[in-house]
């Protein structure tokens, strides 16, 4: 078995004395793990940093085997990530969430392209929070937990949509919520692509998407704990407001 693809690194861990097991997200082969021989060497270890864009060649005797990667660096995102704490926290949350949510060896080409575009914006702190919110919505959609924000789930109205039903993930209007309003999640305009997307609205919207990751995605994955990196990112974002 052999294939070549492009991808970016999600995580790397030492394997034995000289090798590393890497987890990458590739365009055509999805999330994929493999061994990099000599991956802890001075030459290769600096390449194997989360977010690094790599040309990958995977080889194994049988498809079920973990196999081994040959990696060529295409571009590093470390400098962009080191440019500030928001960028670093952002990179950690993207790689952490992808590792958390995606099954192995299942292609998600559209999500891959969005993820790569998002990572290329690292360091542009004025654009990044909104781009990240859009990416989280796309990730929920890809996982089958997409939010339907087009009309009120109760009345069908398209005006005054200010809530999201925590049960269905659908928008609810002020009238439609009625006495259940206090049980609803907030639907800031930025989630529907409206308004100027101020940072406090983005932070509020991320708390809403976070609810669906914690209460819908995580239970579907066997109640794995959410990556701490996301909470740290939200904390960093709220302190930069």
């Amino acid at each position, binding site marked *: 078995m052999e294939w070549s693809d492009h991808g970016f690194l999600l*995580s790397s*861990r030492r394997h034995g*004395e000289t090798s590393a097991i890497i987890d990458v997200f590739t365009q055509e082969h999805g999330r994929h793990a493999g061994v990099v021989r000599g991956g802890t060497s001075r030459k290769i270890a*600096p*390449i194997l*940093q*989360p*977010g690094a864009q790599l040309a990958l060649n995977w080889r194994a005797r049988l498809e079920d085997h973990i196999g081994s990667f040959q990696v060529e*660096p295409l*571009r*590093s995102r*470390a*400098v962009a*990530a*080191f440019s500030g*704490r928001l960028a*670093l*926290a952002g*990179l*950690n949350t993207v790689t*952490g969430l992808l*590792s958390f949510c995606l099954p192995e060896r299942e292609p998600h080409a559209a999500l891959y392209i969005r993820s790569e575009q998002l990572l290329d914006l690292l360091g542009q702190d004025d654009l990044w929070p909104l781009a990240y919110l859009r990416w989280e919505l796309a990730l929920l959609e890809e996982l089958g937990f997409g939010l339907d924000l087009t009309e009120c789930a109760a009345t069908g109205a398209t005006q005054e949509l200010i809530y999201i039903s925590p049960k269905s993930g659908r928008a609810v209007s002020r009238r439609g919520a009625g006495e259940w309003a206090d049980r609803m999640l907030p639907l800031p305009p930025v989630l529907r692509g409206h308004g100027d997307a101020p940072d406090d609205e983005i932070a509020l919207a991320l708390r809403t998407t976070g609810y669906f990751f914690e209460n819908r995605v995580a239970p579907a994955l066997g109640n794995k704990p959410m*990556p*701490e*990196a996301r909470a*740290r990112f939200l904390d960093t974002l709220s302190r930069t407001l």
Partner: protein
Amino acid sequence: MRNASPIDILIELMAKLPGLGPRSARRAVLHLIRKRALLLIPLADAIREVAETARECLNCGNVGTSEICEICDDEKRAIGEICVVEDVADLWAMERANVFKGRYHVLGGTLSALDSVGPEELRIPRLVDRVATENITEVILALNATIDGQTTAHYIADQLHGGVRLTSLAQGVPIGGELDYLDDGTISAALRARKEV
């Protein structure tokens, strides 16, 4: 290891050391046996003594032979500066350079969600205590230029926010380094941190 001779046991144990495999362990053991008086006996004595006395410094996490290591015990090094390093090997590297005259704090790793290493697994709460009680004016974050290293640095900075000067090591061209062989990340970092000549 049942019924194995002491020499086989020694070879098997030596083969577990970093950088050694069964073959090189066999060569090393053979060499030790041939140099019994010169190497084997002093080595055995030294290993026994280290096994009995080596411990982590209660203050900084350095490895020494007493509860408080020599660096923490040295009054001349109480200059109000703490250099935070990931590992004892990093502390030794800094000491080899012989440029830092303050004290150290060894974290014992970096934050890593993948390996479930959180702040409590590292010595971050102890560092916060030390900064509060040892009249510290500057904390130098000498952590690796990796995503995990820098994430840890930012976390520590958040914990120590206010009252103390926080600095980190520069990143750029190494001494003796040739630009042609540097990765694009290092070149960008070096260019950003350029200085007047």
